[in-house]
C-alpha cells in the first residue's frame, strides 16, 4: 500500500486530542441527545439517495461534517501549513479500503467513534464486542499486508 514511515510516540498530544474528541461527543449528547458516531452522521448525507430511509435531524449532521472538513483549514490558517499526514499510495487499495469501511460501518451500525468512543463511554457490551472485532480485524490486515504479502 506504500512505504512504511516510522511515527513518533506522542502520548500527551494524543491524550489532548482524545479529550477534544470526547468533549465534542458530550456536546452532541448534551445539545441534541445523539451519539456522535461519524459513520451514522455520514448516513445523514447518503440518505439523500432515493429509496433509502431518511434520518431526521439532517441539518446539524451536515453542519457537523462541515466542521470536520474545515478543521485542517483552521490548522492551515493558524500555523501556516496543513497537518502532516502520510496516506497510502495504492489507489486500488484505497478504493477497496473505502468501500469496506463504508459498507462495514453501515452494516455493523458504527465505527471508531460510534462504537469506540461513544459506545465504550455508555459501557455498551454490543459496542465493546464491535470494537474488539474491528481492532482485531484491522491488526490482522495491517500485519498481513506489511509482513506476509
Amino acid at each position: 500500500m506504500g512505504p512504511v514511515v516510522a511515527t513518533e510516540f506522542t502520548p500527551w498530544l494524543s491524550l489532548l486530542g482524545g479529550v477534544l474528541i470526547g468533549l465534542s461527543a458530550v456536546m452532541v449528547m448534551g445539545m441534541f441527545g445523539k451519539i456522535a458516531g461519524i459513520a451514522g452522521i455520514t448516513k445523514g448525507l447518503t440518505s439523500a439517495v432515493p429509496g433509502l430511509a431518511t434520518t431526521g435531524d439532517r441539518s446539524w449532521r451536515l453542519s457537523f461534517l462541515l466542521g470536520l472538513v474545515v478543521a485542517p483549514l483552521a490548522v492551515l490558517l493558524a500555523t501556516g501549513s496543513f497537518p502532516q499526514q502520510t496516506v497510502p499510495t495504492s489507489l486500488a487499495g484505497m478504493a477497496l479500503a473505502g468501500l469496506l469501511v463504508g459498507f462495514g460501518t453501515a452494516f455493523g451500525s458504527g465505527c471508531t467513534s460510534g462504537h469506540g468512543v461513544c459506545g465504550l463511554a455508555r459501557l455498551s457490551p454490543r459496542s465493546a464486542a464491535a470494537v474488539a472485532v474491528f481492532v482485531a480485524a484491522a491488526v490482522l490486515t495491517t500485519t498481513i499486508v506489511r509482513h506476509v504479502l
Partner: protein
Amino acid sequence: MRNIIGFAAGLIFGLGLIVSGMANPAKVLNFLDILGPWDPSLAFVMGGASVTAFIGYRLVWRRGTPVMGTQFDLPASGTIDAPLLTGAAIFGVGWGLGGFCPGPAWASLAIGSTGILVFLPAMLIGIVLADFGKSSPLFAKKGA
C-alpha cells in the same frame, strides 16, 4: 442555532483528530502494526476520548433531556448479532488497509491527497450499498 452548535462540535472533533495524530494514516497503521514500528499513541486517543465522554455523558444525562431535543436517543439494541460482527470485521479490514476510519477521512478531505480523494467517494458508495443490502431479502432474518 442547531447548525452553529453542530458545526462547532464537528470542528472540535476534527481538531481533536488532527492534534491526536489520528488523522494521519501512517500513525494509525503503525498502531495496528504491532510487529513493525509500533506507535501506541492511538491507545491514548481512545482512552482520553472514552473517559471524557464517560464522565461528560453522566453529567449531561442528569438534565433528563438534551438542550435542543426532547429525549436522549440512545441505541435500543443490546444484541450482539451477526450483522454487528460481520460489519465490524469488514470495517476492520478496510481500516487496516487504508488507515482511515470515517472521522479522519472527512477531516483529511481538504488536505486533498490522492488517496483520500479515492477513499471518501468509495466510502460513501459502501454506505449506500450496505443500506440497500440491509433492506434486501438476501439478508432477511429467518425464524425467531
